[in-house]
Structure formats: structure tokens, C-alpha cells
């Protein structure tokens, strides 16, 4: 169970105009602007749900994920994930969740994938029988086979992303956060990733929270969507409520326009 209540988060951004003179000026006296990333965000997500968290770039999606995964501390508001306050009890919290950041890598670059997996086994203190079972199962489902022995630098993006997904699930987390997991992937890899996530949710009852700009991801994986824009929740409902009027991309673009975000 995830509960977010009136969460606010602001960032301080050093701003200046372009040009050398402005650069010198800002060296002597830096001016900061406050940018509101999240403004009174509230929602709750039940166990086993699949939620698509959508919104244009800079809407606050990643910030929300980072607060939920204990990386960032909000300015105000309450947040409970299975009874834990993520940023207060970071280490206890992260042991129970899995996170995939589509634009980053958690695997060690110069060593075979298997080495990174074994490191994660020790970091999460996964009992060896559980580890073996999970690894074998993930290897089969994501078709990792030979990839495990390959150094990460020699994997294609699609291969790597499949390994990243497996890496985030070795410790059997209750909740999986996916931040743009299909970005840059080809059609085959995208489908493989989507099908895997659907199956994971169905079989292990893992709660899945997905942010993406790919509406086909949303269609394939999630039932509920939460729309965020300029730091506020604008819409929270069933996918079927907004879909059904043809192309989902156009529907969403329309939606963004109607909320002026």
C-alpha cells in the first residue's frame, strides 16, 4: 500500500542570462529561483495494482519516483509505503522495492552481468536458494541465457535493459518502480519488456508503478493512470475512461492541451 499525502518538493535553481558578463556577475552573486516540482501531490495505490504515471517532461514524475524510493526528501507532506517512510528508513525501505531507471545503468560496465547480479545478491543479503531460483526464473523469462556471461559494455541497449529489469527483481521486491523502462528500445525488446512486466504483476502480485511517454507501454501494462502536470495531479482514473476514442497518443496530447500543460 502506497499513500502520498500533500507532498510538496521544490528545487533551487541557479539562473542567469546568457553571456560572459552575466557569468561574471553570477560568480560574485548567484541568484536562485525556486522551482516547484511537486505541489500537494496525493494519491494512494493498493497492493498488486499497475499504475501508469504520465505527464509531459518536467511534470514531476521522476521526482515522485525518487521520493517513493527514498532517494529524495520532500519539503512537506506525508508518505507511507507499506508502513515505512521512505526517506526516514531508507535502508529498510529500499530492501523491499525494486527500481529501474531507463536512462541509467545499475550494472557494472566492465564485468559480466553475472558478477553484478552476485554483487546485488550480497548487497540485498538474498539467501542463496532464493537467489538461484529468482535468477533462473528471470533468465528464462527474459531470455538472458548467454547474456549473463557477457560484459555489460558489449550488450545492446535492449539486451542491457532486460538485464537491468532482472537485476531489479532478484530480491523479489513487493513494489517495482519503472522510470521509462522502454526508452530507446526496438519493437521486439519493447514487447518482451512489456509482456514480462504484465506477467510479473499477474504471477507475483508485484505492484508496478510505471512512468513513460510511450502510450503503448501504458496500454499494455497498466489499468489505472495518474496524470501529473506542473507538479499537480490532474487526473486519476481508469485507462478506459480516457481511452476508447481512437489513437491513445492523440488522446493524451489532447488531454495535455486541455490542461494547458
Amino acid at each position, binding site marked *: 500500500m502506497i499513500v502520498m499525502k500533500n507532498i510538496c518538493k521544490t*528545487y533551487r535553481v541557479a539562473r542567469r542570462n546568457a553571456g560572459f558578463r552575466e557569468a561574471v556577475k553570477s560568480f560574485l552573486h548567484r541568484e536562485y529561483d525556486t522551482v516547484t516540482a511537486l505541489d500537494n501531490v496525493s494519491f494512494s495505490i493498493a497492493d498488486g495494482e499497475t499504475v501508469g504515471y504520465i505527464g509531459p517532461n518536467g511534470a514531476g514524475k*521522476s521526482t515522485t519516483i*525518487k521520493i517513493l*524510493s*527514498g*532517494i*529524495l*526528501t520532500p519539503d512537506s507532506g506525508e508518505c507511507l509505503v507499506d508502513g515505512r517512510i521512505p526517506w526516514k528508513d*531508507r*535502508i*529498510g525501505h*529500499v*530492501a523491499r*522495492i525494486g*527500481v529501474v*531507471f531507463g*536512462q*541509467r*545503468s*545499475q550494472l*557494472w560496465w*566492465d*564485468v559480466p552481468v553475472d*558478477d*553484478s547480479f*552476485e*554483487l546485488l545478491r*550480497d*548487497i*540485498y*543479503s538474498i539467501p542463496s536458494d532464493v537467489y538461484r531460483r529468482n535468477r533462473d526464473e528471470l533468465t528464462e523469462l527474459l531470455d538472458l541465457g548467454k547474456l549473463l556471461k557477457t560484459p555489460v559494455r558489449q550488450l545492446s541497449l535492449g539486451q542491457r535493459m532486460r538485464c537491468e529489469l532482472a537485476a531489479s527483481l532478484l530480491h523479489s521486491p513487493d513494489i517495482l518502480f519503472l522510470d521509462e523502462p522502454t526508452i530507446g528500445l526496438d519493437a521486439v525488446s519493447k514487447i518482451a519488456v512489456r509482456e514480462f512486466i504484465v506477467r510479473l504483476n499477474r504471477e507475483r502480485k508485484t505492484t508496478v508503478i510505471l512512468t513513460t511517454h510511450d502510450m503503448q507501454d501504458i496500454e499494455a501494462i497498466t489499468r489505472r493512470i495518474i496524470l501529473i502536470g506542473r507538479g499537480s495531479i490532474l487526473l486519476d482514473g481508469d485507462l478506459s475512461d480516457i481511452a476508447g476514442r481512437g489513437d491513445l497518443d492523440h488522446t493524451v496530447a489532447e488531454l495535455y492541451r486541455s490542461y494547458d500543460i
Partner: protein
Amino acid sequence: MKWKKYLSVFRLRFAMCLQYRTAAFAGVATQFVWGFMEINVFYAFRSSDPAAFPMGFEQLASYIWLQQAFLALFMVWFMENEIFDSIMDGNICYELCRPIDLYNLWFARSAAHRMSRALLRCAPILLAAFLLPPPYRMTLPPDALTLVCFVFAMLLSVTVTIALCMLVYMLSFFTVSPQGLRILFAMIAEVLQGIVIPLPFYPRNVRRLMEMLPFASMENVPLRIYSGNISGGEAVRAMLLQGFWVLLLIAAGKLICRRAMKKVTVQGG
């Protein structure tokens, strides 16, 4: 088992560094030539005025060869680029969503990196140094106890060095780019550690001050213990000071780490 995590990080990082063979070969060649040149310079210096030379020449030769052989253990500029990168580009969010203490994680990583690099490079350099003719030849320590003290002081030295680098990593959370901090610390350390010129060559009062700073606890102590340049009570005092700096620097690093975690903003979306 809490320690197993960090041991595992250490092991993987260690194994990873062992695969950079070309870099190791280049390192050995560079360090060997460098050490040879340095000894020549000091030899010329001694020839001009032997009375002004503050160390025995054998002591100096051993000092220089140890310095070159174990360069990777003590050089402050030798930091983990991946750590700076992860702070700058936001990859750190993966490290933060692990059930592991960030300070200890990075400490284990740095220790593995330094030790594996030193391990690959030290043997050929030391071997050659023992076979060279005098005045270049490296000598064995005066007795077994000295050797034990040397090893112990080395361990303390590496710990002080890593703890100092950890300060730089942690302070990087508060600056736009880590380069400034990194260069500042590396330059100061290189002089005060006794890497450019061993500390006995400085004027007495300056030297006394330098010997109290944490930088002197990094390379200066074990290398001078090895050759017998400091011994007995003086060596014990130097090692106690090392222990003091270990505790202080680690405590400071952990404190800054905790503050950084509170205000951390992950960069780059």
C-alpha cells in the same frame, strides 16, 4: 552479515581492476623511470654537499622505490572517476536505492581499487629495485619488527588516504563541479605528504608542523619507518597520530555524508 556486502563490493572492484593489464604495464614502466630519475637528482644534491643531506642515502633510495611501487595507495589525485560522475550525472540514484551505507560502499570501492592497482604494479618495481647496483639499490629494513611496523603503518596510511578522498567525494555534493576540490586537495596533499620532496628535507620547524598534519600520516610514516629513519618511540607516536587521523577523517566524512543525503538533489532528470 553486514560486512559481507562491503566485502563483496571490494572483491568485485578488485577483480575488475585486475583486468586492466596494459595500464599496469605502463604504470610499472613510468614509475620505474620516475624513481630512477628522482634518485639521480638526490644523488647530485648529495654530491654537492653531503653534510647537508638529512637522510642516509640508502634510506632515501628505499623511500623512493617504495613510493613508486605503492604509488596507487597514497596518491590523493587517484580518485574514483565513477563516483564523481555518478554525483554529477545523477547515476547515484541507483546507489541510493540499495540497502547499503553510501560512505562504506564508496570506501570499500576505493580501497579495492587502490590495492588492486598497487598489487599489480609493486612486484616488478620492487624486484628491480633490489637488484639494482648501489646507490640505486633498495635495502631490506633493519629488523623484522621494523617490517611489521611498516606493514601496520602502511595499512593506517591507506586508510587515512581513502578517508581524505572520501571527504572530497562528500564535499562534491555541494559544488557544481568536483574538479576544483579535487585539484586543490591533490596539490596540497602532494606537497605535504612528502611526495614531491620527502619531509626530512624541509627546515626543522616547517617539518615539525607538517608532520602533525593528516597528510604526513599518509605516506611519510610507513616509508620512513621501513628504512629506519624513524624508529622506537617516535614511530609509535607517528602511528598513534595516524590512528587519530583515521578516526577524525572518517567521522568528518560520515557527518558530511549525512548532511549531503538530506539535501541531495539528483541531477539530470
